[in-house]
């Protein structure tokens, strides 16, 4: 297989990796040790592989690595600074929004992209974002609460009945 060079910035660090032309961004990131990028459904349904590409949430399982040439990529490892967590990470802990944790990196990155564009995002926007992240442990309410707590001004989830309208 002819290999090619991929130049990109991951979490602020410039990288140059040898990749195969058919490599997916998910494969390359995990191979390089970014295990926060999860391999889930591999069909763009579950959102566990979500990374930010130039600030936008994308499914890395459906993107060829070559597409990311020259791009700024952020994975969950790029949030916080090693000792201090990002406010969204704090909020997920405070609200008990993490159970097994498999969907969490994707959810937090999706929420970050949302709040970067809409710092005042309300519940509708947050739920629209969460539609691209499947949680198979418990559900979405705690995660939605966590994101709304970081929105400006902080908001609470509206009262809902089970299966109620969004």
């Amino acid at each position, binding site marked *: *297989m*002819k290999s*090619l060079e991929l130049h990109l910035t991951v979490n602020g660090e410039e990288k140059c990796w040898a990749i*195969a*032309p*058919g*490599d*997916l961004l998910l*494969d390359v990131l995990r191979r390089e040790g970014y295990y926060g990028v999860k391999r889930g459904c*591999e*069909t*763009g*349904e579950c*959102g566990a592989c*979500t990374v930010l*590409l130039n600030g*936008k*949430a*994308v*499914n890395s*399982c*459906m*993107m*060829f690595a*070559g*597409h990311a*040439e020259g791009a700024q990529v952020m994975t969950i490892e790029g949030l916080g600074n090693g000792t201090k967590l990002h406010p969204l990470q704090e909020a997920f802990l405070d609200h008990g929004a993490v159970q097994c944790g498999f969907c969490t990196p994707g959810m937090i990155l*999706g929420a970050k*992209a*949302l709040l970067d564009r809409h710092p005042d995002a309300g519940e509708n926007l947050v739920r*629209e*974002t969460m*539609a*691209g*992240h499947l949680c198979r442990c418990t559900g979405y309410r705690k995660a939605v609460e966590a994101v709304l707590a970081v929105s400006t001004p902080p908001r609470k989830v509206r009262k809902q009945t089970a299966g109620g309208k*969004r």
Partner: protein
Amino acid sequence: MFDQVEQYHRAASVAEALRLLQTGKGRARVVAGCTDFALQSDDSVRILIDITRAGLSYLRSKDGWLSIGATTTMADLEESSAVRNLAGGILARAAASCGSVQIRNVATIGGNMAHGSPAADLAPPLVALDAVMVVVSPAGRQRIGVGDYLAKTKAPNALLAEIRIPDGPSGKRCGWSFQKLGRTAVDISLVSAAAGLEVDARGKVKWARIALGAVAPMAMRADETEKLITGRILDRGLLDEAGLAVRREIGPISDQRASADYRREMSGVLVRRALQECASQSGWPL
């Protein structure tokens, strides 16, 4: 997963993409967001030609046409004021319904049309709006009506470069609607419908456009239903008639998501809802 792929090119122009396509001899594939391609197990493809940097991401309004570059994403369409203001925003609404945020950030209008899924979300609005596809090949640029484009086999050495939408019919008492039924907010459509109409001062339908997705081999105009309601007074009875008529015009299939019967039933419901929304927008609420 795509071990068979031997080359990945980021074409810097349409000309470069066409040249690569020629040299690929049928084993090259033009790709953009890859949200459809990455799901296929087509192992004949050896060369990928990424056209997202070929200068095809744009929206331009000129001389009564809205021109949309093929690699314009669903997210771009949702956010564009030109698209939101066109025909009640039905194309923007369809784009906003096309999968999750992550999908919409990369999936493109060109890919949605070129892939040719019967359930392509943008197809019903583009069919209802009489869109024109601009296809480029070594022989030159060709303009093809959206219906013909969907029906024809795609030339292997050509690529879809632009989608053009005419200003189209409008008027004082005009209304448009896009309706989609899916299992979840992000699932592919079971049935989708785009509609537009104009009524006169007494509520008589001057013209109507009705297009449906996922209920035939490709998105289709419901010509018979359009004819049925044109010239008639728009009332609840007419909505019922239209809902019944459209069920006779379509040819849905059964698959893992829904039975043909269910799709047929829901086509009637969606067309009824769409026409009702059109009516209310046109100032003739029912």
